[in-house]
């Protein structure tokens, strides 16, 4: 992967997190980083410049990361409003995960940031296979993932081919039905 031409906006209010994330990205080869420490600075930058990737802290000093994501998805100029957004949460901000997802973030990554996870999320964001949804109550990447079966070559049987799972044809079992299925029963010989 060649990160050298990628520009990323990093909105983080904690200096040490900025340094760590910045160092990881730099070592990936992503040198063009725009660090800002508030949501309002992030908005101001995104209104006048184009970036290919955004990293937002879940709780910035002047607004929640989810609010900033929502602004990008609904109000930022194109093509910025389609950029992949990764929201970074710390331990005490765990509640922000759902809010960030519902606001239209591509991924939420919990700190401490692992280079492996970050690299994989970045490359996944770049695949470009995820559709974008625009609806009254949600604007952002499609949150539904398709079940494609075992990946090619990884199945143990010759019939384990990668294939799309079809639409659900019967209703899901109720909890009572599942309980009845799992309940131990005594077998009686007749």
């Amino acid at each position, binding site marked *: *992967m*060649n*990160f*050298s*031409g*990628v520009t990323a906006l990093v909105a983080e209010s*904690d200096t*040490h*997190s900025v*340094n*760590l994330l910045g*160092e*990881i990205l*730099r*070592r*990936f*080869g992503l040198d063009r980083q725009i660090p800002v420490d508030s949501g309002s600075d992030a908005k101001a930058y995104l209104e006048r410049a*184009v970036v*290919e*990737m955004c990293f937002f802290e879940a709780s910035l000093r002047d607004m929640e990361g989810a609010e900033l994501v929502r602004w990008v998805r*609904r109000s930022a100029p*194109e*093509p910025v409003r*389609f*950029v*992949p957004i990764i929201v970074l949460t*710390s*331990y*005490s*901000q765990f509640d922000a995960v759902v809010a960030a997802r519902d606001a239209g973030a591509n991924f939420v990554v919990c*700190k*401490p*940031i692992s*280079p*492996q996870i*970050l*690299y994989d999320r*970045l*490359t996944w*964001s*770049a*695949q*470009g*296979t995820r*559709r*974008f*949804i*625009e*609806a*009254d109550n949600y*604007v952002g990447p*499609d949150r539904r993932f398709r079940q494609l079966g075992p990946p090619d070559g990884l199945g143990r049987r010759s019939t384990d081919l990668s294939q799309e799972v079809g639409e659900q044809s019967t209703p899901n079992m109720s909890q009572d039905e599942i309980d009845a299925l799992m309940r131990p029963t005594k077998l009686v010989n007749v």
Partner: protein
Amino acid sequence: MKAGTKKASSFLPPNALKALLSRPGGKTRDEAIAAALAGIESLRSVSMEAVERAVDAIEVAARRNTHETLSADQLEQVARDADLIITLAGTYGIANLDAAGRSLCDLVRSLLKVAPCPAEPVVVHARALKLFAPSKPPIGNEQAQMVLQELGKIRTHFDAMPPTAA
């Protein structure tokens, strides 16, 4: 999105990242990750200093208010410092410090529900953080587990307290 739009639409958005990343050159996944891990390691001493400062800040905030109470703002600042400790301790694999930091964050969450918020449990956590700080000589696993269990008891006590009516 235009105001008043009723129908949901789905489309493949423009993705400049894909074109940029797939240009020739760059690093393989293994090379990039190895380089990033080396980069993290190069920040170890700076990060450990930051951990020490965060532990000191929690200790000062809590001790200043021993036998007194902490305001919600003070507790939120404690949580921010604890968050930093967790992030850095997790990054550099300081397990006991990480666990004590998490315990403090959980405690703050419980304390924010009660008013007035007592300072003593935060003081105890600050002492534990100090004990596990990177500048201190490492303590035995058995002792560390004992300390963490005691922190757990404090947390359980405040978890069980009913929220104060606003």
